[in-house]
């Protein structure tokens, strides 16, 4: 078993009213678990068995689509749970704010562009804040893709698959994205990931 499903770092109802208990139960216990289980089945007997999730994501991209889909989604969801917290959002830590000011034109512009990236990802996918060539960049990717396979390191990501918001927001993806950035983001985890980038 290469992949294991991490526990949520908070109670299932901890993100209400912005993300419901019901959404987190399905999203974590069913969707993420399915990526883990399917990924492990696909890894069985392959040379990538036992490697890190990051290595598997990069090695399977463009070569083994079913494995990539599930490995990518495993990586994405591991961090997605940590990128949120109860009473999240709020002030952005100074170290990140400085980088947002210099690379992305300020906090308000960053928030608007990040939300717009999520709205503009047609179909299923993710919107990202990533570090590429030493600079912060807003990205969006379809389905299970992420910045790792585009020469970048993600430090914040939001799931815009409909399963992430349909119970709570139905078709109103923009409202979900605004709630995420204003009320859910765990900036400490973003800061930690930023500190580990090259």
């Amino acid at each position, binding site marked *: 078993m290469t992949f294991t499903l991490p526990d949520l770092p908070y109670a299932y109802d901890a993100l*209400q*009213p*912005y993300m*419901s208990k*019901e959404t987190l139960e*399905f999203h974590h216990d*069913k*969707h993420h678990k*399915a990526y883990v289980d399917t990924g492990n089945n696909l890894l069985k007997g392959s040379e990538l068995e036992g490697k890190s999730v990051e290595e598997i994501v990069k090695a399977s991209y463009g070569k083994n*689509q*079913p494995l990539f*889909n599930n490995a990518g989604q495993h990586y994405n969801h591991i961090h997605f749970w940590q990128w949120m917290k109860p009473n999240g959002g709020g002030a952005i830590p100074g170290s990140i704010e400085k980088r947002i000011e210099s690379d992305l034109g300020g906090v308000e512009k960053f928030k608007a562009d990040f939300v717009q990236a999520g709205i503009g990802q*047609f*179909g*299923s*996918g993710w919107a990202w804040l990533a570090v590429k060539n030493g600079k912060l960049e807003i990205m969006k990717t*379809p*389905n*299970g893709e992420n910045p790792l396979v585009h020469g970048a390191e993600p430090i914040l990501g939001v799931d815009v*698959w*409909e*399963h992430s918001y*349909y*119970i*709570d*927001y*139905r*078709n*109103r993806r*923009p*409202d979900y994205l*605004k*709630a995420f950035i*204003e*009320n859910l983001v765990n900036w400490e985890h973003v800061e930690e990931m930023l500190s580990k980038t090259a």
Partner: protein
Amino acid sequence: MAHYHRRALLAGATALTFAASIRQASAQAAPAGPYKLDPLPYPANANEPHIDAKTMEIHHGRHHQAYVTNLNAALKEHADLAKKPLHELLASLDQVPQSVRTAIRNNGGGHANHAMFWQIMGGKGGEPGGELKAAIDRDLGGFEAMKKAFNTAGAGRFGSGWVFVTVDKAGKLAITSKPNQDTPLMDGERVLFGNDVWEHAYYLTYQNRRPDYLAAWWNVVDWSKVSERFAAAKAGTLTI
């Protein structure tokens, strides 16, 4: 019902927080344009219990409406493109200016796919007869084999998309799957029928259980409508 009540409360909390943005969204009336959203050809609860009424209302009134609105917006400055029938527009995306190509692909595809989708549901399932049954037996190995291959293709579409049965002028059938709102119309083909496997099509009732949705969906297919489309395809009059 308690289920929905709680959802409504949650949505209410969000609505308060983002009242401004919601006001903005609802103020945007559909721009005048060549395309309009036809009403559902049956009540929203006609496909229950297999597809719940709330899903039908949001799917038709919000999702499909957004494709129509955005398609008209993309065509606003392109009167020449707006004059083209939708199936021709989608079959010639390479001739569409880059600035609106993705918008027309996504929203034109979304409009065509959903217009077809409403039309072929509202029925009682069962099996088709006559020439359509003969074509399914000949090209797809029979009704049960067709259902199995169709459901497998739908379940295997990672992310959002559709699964279709296409039909050519000779009445030959094939199963295919497309991502997002792409359609066989973009390959110059014709769609006999198709099923939407975006999560919005089934999430309120089936959540992560897409295979259960695919299996249940056959109970609402109106085979008389599909047979009409089959006859039209052979007559060369089927468009979207």
